């Protein structure tokens, strides 16, 4: 496997030739797949461009016709030619105007369809990728893929395919006309293509590297920006504003510099093209001049050849700009296609097994788990959790409790062995059924912007208001929600700024309650609750857990009261396993933990 697969090597701009080709190919494939559903519309757009260009070209000819024929005819008393050309001109004008308007819409539709498709693909991919990916690929980078990278693709799409099409047509037509009129000048023009090719090649290789650098630099700016705004309280409390100013200014300067470099490159490329064009004209003049003196060609032919060779280069600047934005977009596509190429480490099954109504029996079969090859977190173990059992998972921080929970909720897959639900390997279980059957509530309760009700309804999107309220009531969240400015319709602003951590946890609980899963995992889900709330939640759990499997990780051992069975973990191993009463009565780890906890109570 190459080192530039997926997002690896994303920060590098010094890709070697093979890598560069590989990355280019994958972004071209992506571009192709984005454009192919729009094939017919693209062809139509091209056709509209060609016709409207023709209409525009015909204009001056009509004026010439009007003047040359119309004036003498009118003097002779015949108004017909003038009237005809005038009408033709108006018709042409209207036609051209309508076509241009149509073209504008077509172009926008294509461009927006591509952007929409791309946004959706990246979003879906972000959701599809495993937690492992997100733990190393910071959110800021995803955001920069979705914002500034998309901006540069948008620029390409809007920069006028029309310019490209009409430019190519124009150049082609001019070149043919030139060859027909004067093959010799045509040959000179062909000769000019050689330095043109080298110049373009130079621009291409250089700008590729530099555009890559701008993408990396811009992502860095975005990462810093997002992180600072998200953590603004900590920033202020620890007075890191000046330090952040400096780091951000450095990132911005790097971005500016990389941008300036790429712009400067174009600043050489563009006048370079002009220079080649102008030199070509001078050579045509020089060679043609001597040929005129020799009597080889007529002056008229030379004049026409000169004008044609000059015109040949006219659309060059626009096409260069198009090429420039193409390079920029290609660099962005490289990054995006890298993200899209990533394969989730926890993939959806190819042949999902359905499980409509799960009972909730869990089994670990010779499971070993480690994040990377060398570091084993959970050494090989077996565990059988019958349906309906409530398990308290106990142990000091870092003992592997959360990892165990993440294996059950399939945030990770075991390195070796299988985890099964009702006898079905989680890896082959239909994701929908898996998520319906197993729900995990964690200590960090993220709230999405939107109302409290919407946040609770995340557990069951089609829930009625009554169901939402009764879920909130069940976990004791109803009272405080009612006291919010707009009750259930209160907007939980930006990362729940206005709702306290405890309240957020209650909302998460309500969410889980509403989801009504067969297996419920609570990972320190009551840590931020005050004691009365915790008590209410405990009571709710008594009923909630009566007919389902539960794994409860809590440092407050009060949970143990509602557990049927306690598992004590240490260094990734289950060291004790038994009923609460047995373990408390014993002399093991749990007995001492329990004693310590009881001491911590009032």
């Amino acid at each position, binding site marked *: 496997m190459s080192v530039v697969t997926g997002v690896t090597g994303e920060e590098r701009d010094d890709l070697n030739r093979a890598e560069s080709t590989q990355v280019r190919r994958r972004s071209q494939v992506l571009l192709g797949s984005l454009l192919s559903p729009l094939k017919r519309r693209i062809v139509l757009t091209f056709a509209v461009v060609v016709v409207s260009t023709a209409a525009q070209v015909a*204009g001056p000819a009509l004026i010439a016709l009007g*003047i040359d024929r119309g*004036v003498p005819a*009118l003097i002779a008393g015949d108004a017909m030619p*003038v009237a005809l050309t*005038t009408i033709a001109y108006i018709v042409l004008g209207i036609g051209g105007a*309508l076509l241009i308007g149509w073209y*504008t819409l077509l172009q926008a539709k294509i461009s927006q369809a591509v952007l929409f498709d791309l946004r*959706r693909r990246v*979003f879906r991919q*972000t*959701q599809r990728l495993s937690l492992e990916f997100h733990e190393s690929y910071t*959110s800021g980078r995803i955001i920069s893929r*979705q914002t*500034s990278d998309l*901006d540069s693709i948008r620029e390409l799409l809007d920069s006028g395919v029309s310019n490209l099409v009409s430019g190519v047509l124009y150049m082609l037509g001019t070149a043919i006309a030139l060859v027909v009129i004067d093959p010799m000048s045509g040959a000179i023009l062909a000769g000019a293509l050689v330095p043109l090719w080298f110049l373009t090649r130079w621009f291409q290789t250089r700008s590729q590297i530099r555009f890559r650098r701008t993408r990396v630099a811009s992502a860095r700016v*975005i*990462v810093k*920006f*997002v992180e600072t*705004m*998200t953590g603004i309280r*900590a920033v*202020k*409390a620890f*007075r*890191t*504003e000046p330090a952040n100013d400096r780091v951000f200014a450095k990132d911005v300067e790097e*971005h*500016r510099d990389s941008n300036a470099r790429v712009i400067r490159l174009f*600043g050489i490329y*563009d006048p370079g093209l*002009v*220079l080649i064009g*102008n030199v070509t*004209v*001078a050579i045509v*003049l*020089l060679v043609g*001049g001597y040929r005129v003196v020799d009597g080889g060609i007529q002056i008229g032919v030379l004049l026409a050849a*000169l*004008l044609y060779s000059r015109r040949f280069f006219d659309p060059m600047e626009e096409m260069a700009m198009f090429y420039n934005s193409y390079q920029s977009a290609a660099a962005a596509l490289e990054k995006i296609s890298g993200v899209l190429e990533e394969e989730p480490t926890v993939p959806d099954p190819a042949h999902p097994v359905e499980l409509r109504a799960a009972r909730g029996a869990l089994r670990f079969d010779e499971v070993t788990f480690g994040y990377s090859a060398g570091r084993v977190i959970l050494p090989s173990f077996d565990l059988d959790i019958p349906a309906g059992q409530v398990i308290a998972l106990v142990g*000091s*921080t870092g003992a592997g409790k959360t990892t165990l929970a993440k294996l059950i909720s399939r945030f990770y897959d075991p390195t070796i062995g299988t985890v099964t639900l009702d006898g079905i390997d989680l890896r082959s279980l239909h994701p929908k059924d898996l*998520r319906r059957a197993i*729900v995990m509530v964690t*200590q960090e309760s*993220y*709230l999405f*912007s939107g109302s409290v009700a919407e946040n609770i309804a995340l557990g069951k*999107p089609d829930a009625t208001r009554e169901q939402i309220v009764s879920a909130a009531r069940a976990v004791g969240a109803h009272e405080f929600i009612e006291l919010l400015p707009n009750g259930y319709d209160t907007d939980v*602003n930006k*990362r729940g700024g206005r709702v306290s951590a405890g309240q957020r946890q209650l909302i998460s609980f309500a969410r889980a309650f509403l989801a009504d899963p067969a297996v419920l995992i609570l990972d*320190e889900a009551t840590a931020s609750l005050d*004691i009365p709330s915790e008590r209410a939640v405990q009571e709710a759990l008594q009923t909630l857990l009566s007919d389902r499997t539960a794994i409860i990780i809590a440092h*407050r051992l*009060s949970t143990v009261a509602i557990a049927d069975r306690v598992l004590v973990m240490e260094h990734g191993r289950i060291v004790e396993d038994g009923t609460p009463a047995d373990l*408390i009565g014993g002399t093991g780890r749990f007995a001492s933990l*329990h004693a310590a906890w009881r001491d*911590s109570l009032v």
Partner: protein
Amino acid sequence: MPADRRPNTVSALWRLLPYARPALPRLILGMVVGIAAGLVALAIPQVLEYLVDTVLADRNAAGILPAALLILGLGVFEAAAILVRRTLVLTPNTHIEARMRNALFEHLQRLPVAFHDRWPSGQLLSRAISDLSAIRRWLAFGLMLLVVNTVTIVVGAILLITTSPLLGVVYLVMSVPIWFVGAKFERTYTLVARRSQDQTGDLATAVEESVHGIRVLKAFGRGGHALKKFERQAEELRGTELEKASAVAFVWRWLILIPDVTFAVCLALGVVLAAQGSLTAGALVAFFATATVLRFPVESIGFLLSFTLDTRTATDRYFEVMDEPNTITDPQSPRTLDQPQGLLEFRDVHFRYPDAPDRFADLVNGVDLRIEPGETMALVGLTGSGKSTITALVTRLYDIDSGAITLDGVDIRDLRLDELRSRVAMAFEDATLFSATVRENVLLGRPDAGEEALAEALRIAQAQFVHDLPDGLDTVIGEEGLSLSGGQRQRLALARAVAARPSVLVLDDPLSALDVETEELVESALRHVLASTTALIVAHRPSTVMLADRVAVLEDGRITAVGRHSELLATNDHYRFVISSLDEERKTAAASGSDSDAAADDAAVIDAEEVRA
């Protein structure tokens, strides 16, 4: 956040001037050079025609080389002028963009938290990135073309009138509708452009949330749900963009149609005039030649107008944030604490969030509390009673509405923010970590602290686990500390507050995610720090309260009781309700344990606690 007053586009864009000023000489020079390059480009065909007609007409071989050299010279001049123009204009423009971006960032960092509560960061991001790069591009190309084209149109119009007054006037009169079309376009387009940019910001926010909330989405299998919502938003944006396109299509149509009809009329009229003999055929040709040159500048009005309006909207959006006043600033004449003791006092403090409805009482409704130097005060109250809010008031993350908070007798609003926040260090309930090394994260409040202070802080917070990370103290942890557990993050946040060596420590439920044993270790280590440091600790658990010398009970926005844990437990019903696990947990402990401890009565526990304190 729609602007209620809409100044015209020119004055809106004029606000860019202060940022552009340093680059102005180069921009103007660049424009001049650009115009020169344009003129040469226009002249070359004329010169060619002239040369061919004069030099070559008499087949003079000696004249060919100079003629070719002249053309070559002009051509090189044109290319050089373009090179110079680009060099002059483009680099300064990137500086303008960078300057504006830095200014925005600096301003945003200093705006109060209340502002950030209101503004989703996606909206801020879209301003910092997309809007500013649009402004740069406009300054580089749009403005230039606008000036050049306007000049061309004015000069061209004068030429037309001198060539043929009648035709010229007809041409100009018939072009008048362009103004109306342009004005209508400006009205519709500005609104749509604004909407599109706002929706782009919303989309960025949605992306951000979908990544930050990925665990929840995965845990509930709601990725598809989020995708649908996102698609709806993206679809809305697409709709807006297409509306924009149809506005552009509208103006394009007229910008093509009006000149064409004008041409046709002028053609008919011109032919009639020529036939009558009141206009020469040459003048007629010249008239159309000039009018043809004007075609591109006139057509480009549409593109330039939309470009300019996009930029105007971007500028509006930028200044919307830049104009936001910073309400929490350094005082005019700051006082300093020469000998900080750490006496923290709240006097009749009132605070409510700005968007709280009137019918609600103040969230902090007359808090009086005095924390003596070196004293540790626990703050206890129900979830949502305003404990966290009070902690945020001490460092002026929010400013109080009335009353006063004083540090060593000095109103905190009379201290420089920098001084206040170096005296008071906080650990938040959500432990925010930045993507930086462990070392940098812990020493955030005191980057110059030595290794010893760092080790000490890590020891107190029981965060020695960092030594097991791949690169130890130099391991870069994610922005959200993603691969660390909640307890580990909390301990780093605690270490950070301790490492800042403040005179006042404000800890918001700092041990909630720790297991009982670790909590005990942290507490015993923390006691040494707290012995000499004033501390305000939000507590949900009796175990955390144990750290405190006294406890303040927060109820209905007021401190209703202050006292020792044991006193309060004996005398205060609300306190007992909030903090005491006696009723339930004792029972469960008794139920699950069967040994004699369960029989211990309340009094015995209180005694034990007093001994410990």
